[in-house]
């Protein structure tokens, strides 16, 4: 009896063999004493184990055993109850952006008065944060360029995508 046949005998004992194969293995059992012996041995071992998992008793008192579970549940629930924290930098940016924007505008106006070469250097604005948006306004006659920086996540800019696509001034 090869290994494959042995596994099929076992599958028959466990009721896991498809009907067609089951019929073939049953025919084998009818004609082969060793196959029958194997099936009986596998079944005996299975039956010996079934419903006979060795019992165990927790080696701790009810209160002590529970206390460790309760403590962890309490910790998990406390963690769940805490409001989700915004990333630290995002929170900081929310506060600093308006002030930063004003400072930037003020700086640009001042820079403009310092000379035209600096104006050229400042025509492209790189945003330091993906949470930060920018709008610009230029008046060539007055020689003034204004840049508004804003927090994209602010409720004041609910249509931030549209704000980003404003045509250049």
């Amino acid at each position, binding site marked *: 009896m090869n290994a494959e046949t042995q596994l099929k005998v076992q*599958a028959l004992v466990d009721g896991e063999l498809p009907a067609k194969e089951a019929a073939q293995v049953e025919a084998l059992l009818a004609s082969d004493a060793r196959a029958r012996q194997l099936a009986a*041995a596998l079944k005996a071992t299975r039956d010996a*184990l079934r419903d*006979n998992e*060795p019992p165990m008793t*927790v080696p701790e008192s009810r209160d002590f055993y*529970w206390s460790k579970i309760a403590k962890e549940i309490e910790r998990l629930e406390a963690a769940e109850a805490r409001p989700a924290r915004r990333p630290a930098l995002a929170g900081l940016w929310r506060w600093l952006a308006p002030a930063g924007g004003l400072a930037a505008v003020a700086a640009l106006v001042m820079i403009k008065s310092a000379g035209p070469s600096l104006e050229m250097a400042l025509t492209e604005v790189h945003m330091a944060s993906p949470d930060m948006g920018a709008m610009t306004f230029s008046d060539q006659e007055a020689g003034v360029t204004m840049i508004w920086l804003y927090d994209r996540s602010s409720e004041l800019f609910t249509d931030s995508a549209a704000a980003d696509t404003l045509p250049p001034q």
Partner: protein
Amino acid sequence: MAKFTDYPQAEDVRLVRLAQKGDTLAFEELVARHRDKIYARAYSMVRNEDEALDLSQEAWIKGWQRLKQFQGDSSFVTWMTRVTINVCLDHLRKRKRERAESIEQMDEDSGGVERQMPVDVPDPIAGLDRQELRVRIDKALGQLSEAHRTSLVLHEFEGLEYKEIARRMECSIGTVMSRLFYARRRMASLLAGLKKERDEQS
């Protein structure tokens, strides 16, 4: 007015419903009722009392977290033993990685000895009472490899089908069949050996 609940007298179904609403006293009662069973299952799988204790408690915590998912399709304790099995399998995988051993990479040819065993192994339970049989099963389980023991626990104790065992052990059905076959042959041999020892001593 708050409704009084007699937790020790309440059925599992009621305790589960209360626990699902956040009643930790109800959950504590469930733990008290079934902790030995859960601990025994963890011990069957890892064969170490300290680890089994920690894993059983981890399973209860997982059970609490997932309690809302329990729909009552099976008994609560059956559901909890499945949670425990998953916790233990995760633990065994982690331990395997740490020891560079494998329950998946178990040497499939290691059953060669069992394959060549005579098929007419004496009935391993003949003449044993239930308590004695369980003691012997416990001793024999300790002598099996992790992969063989896990296959037996999932099939014989938990009653899972080949397909479900394969899913949980992350291996093929063929591997499950092979492991189970060798595990049974080895278990039969061990039980028979233990029985012979007893017969010779008496």
